[in-house]
């Protein structure tokens, strides 16, 4: 299921400059793509557009040859904010999407158990959302989006509120699930290390307007070793590309003062 993004632009009402401008790239079937770039460059905006929650003001997107006009269960999103429902407990939240899809009770139970155990929240399945920590909420949201087994998974900084050990474990888990299911993943992240660890290709966005600055291929064999020389080399290359962008943003903000 290739995802084609063709010349996509997004101009928000009231702002002079486009947030996204002429974004073009193609995501191949089963690919793991990471999107990196400075804060505020439009990563979430792009993900929202791919999800069908927002419409581009220019260009178009095609999934499997058909244009994306609205959201659908074939493109589940894990949002930057957790978006869990406070009137449901942890396991009910995880089952939410499966219930909508009309899966059998047994199937719901089995998948919820599998993914809740993966994110180590099985013991907390009956807790309410306000009774668990921020990182646990993120993990619940991760379990919820994985349960639905959608062919394209859109993830917006899913591991940003977690500790190093949990991140490491969930990264490998995600990689396993991805390899096992062959689904396509679009993964927004701040961490270049994370991008190099996970991605087949890394799309670096520039800021103001958000354009594709460069696309890097990561050809290292999996599972990748974070402190190997090749890993560090490619990480360094991408980091300097991203950092140049971040510096540009900082300079611009400095000019305003």
């Amino acid at each position, binding site marked *: 299921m290739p995802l084609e993004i063709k010349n996509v632009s997004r101009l928000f009402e009231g702002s002079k400059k486009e947030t996204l401008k002429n974004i073009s790239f193609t995501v191949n079937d089963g690919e793991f793509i990471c999107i990196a770039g400075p804060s505020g460059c439009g990563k979430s905006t792009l993900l929202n557009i791919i999800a069908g929650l927002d419409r581009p003001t220019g260009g178009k997107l095609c999934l499997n040859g058909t244009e994306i006009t609205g*959201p659908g*269960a074939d493109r589940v999103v894990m*949002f930057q904010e957790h978006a869990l429902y406070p009137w449901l407990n942890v396991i009910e939240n995880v089952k*939410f999407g499966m219930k*909508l899809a009309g899966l059998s009770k047994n199937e719901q139970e089995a998948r919820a158990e599998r993914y809740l155990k993966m994110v180590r929240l099985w013991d907390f399945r009956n807790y*309410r959302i306000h009774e668990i920590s921020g990182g646990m909420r993120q993990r619940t949201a991760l379990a919820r989006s994985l349960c639905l087994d959608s062919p394209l998974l859109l993830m917006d900084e899913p591991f940003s509120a977690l500790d190093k050990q949990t991140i490491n474990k969930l990264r490998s888990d995600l990689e396993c699930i991805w390899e096992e299911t062959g689904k396509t993943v679009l993964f927004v992240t701040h961490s270049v290390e994370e991008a190099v660890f996970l991605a087949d290709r890394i799309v670096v966005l520039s800021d103001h307007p958000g354009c594709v600055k460069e696309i890097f291929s990561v050809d290292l064999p999996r599972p990748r070793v974070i402190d190997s020389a090749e890993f560090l080399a490619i990480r360094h290359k991408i980091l300097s590309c991203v950092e140049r962008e971040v510096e540009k943003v900082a300079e611009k903000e400095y000019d305003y003062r």
Partner: protein
Amino acid sequence: MITAKIQGLLFLLFLILLWQVLYILGTGVFKWWKPYALPSPRGVLLSLQKLIQNGTLIHATTCSIRRALSGFFLALLIGSVFGLIISASSFFKRNLKPLFTGIQSLPSICWVPFAILWFGLGEASILFVIVIGSVFSVSLAIENAIQTIPPIYLKAARTMGASRIQLYTSVIIPAALPGFLAGLKQSWSFSWRALMSGEVISAYVGLGYTLMAGRDMADINQVTAVMLVIIAVGMIVDKLVFSNLERHVLKKRGLA
């Protein structure tokens, strides 16, 4: 908690004392008012005692509460439908919502002539006044509760493939519940007020009627006694039903 209750009680006692002093000063010392034009705590108490002893008060109160509740539930039913329609369509939101807000500000006594013309003197016309007095408030409460749902709840459900109906049953209704309950408190007070307008005109039993009977006998103490009962019942229902319900829902979601 206990000291807060004692404080409240003492304050109430102080108000009654102030009232008694004003009564003595106003009618006795300065002679600003004729004694029959100003209620006194003692007179009101005696009046209450009389009304309780001859059974009028209990009968009137149960009758009024029954009417108010049936009117309120009818308004809840009709108002919910309108509220959902308004929030589902931008056309109605633009055109019907301001109209409802306007009509809501109309005192319910204005509807009494229509009520009598259409339904005659009796239960049906009182019910009509209650329903029309609170139905707009219910609609607006629903609309407002839906309006203030965090958009991310809906976005998440839509990306998980929710249909329009599923969006309502699985997200909009449960998410709007706390806001709706808060709005309902106001609708209840509208119902209760509208009931009094209805009863004053066209009832033969009920708190509103007892109040008017007091007026007809020029018994200012009875009028005041009934007024106090009306206030008390309104407050008790608010506390017992709505505040408890609201607290329960908020607590379950970690909002209180």
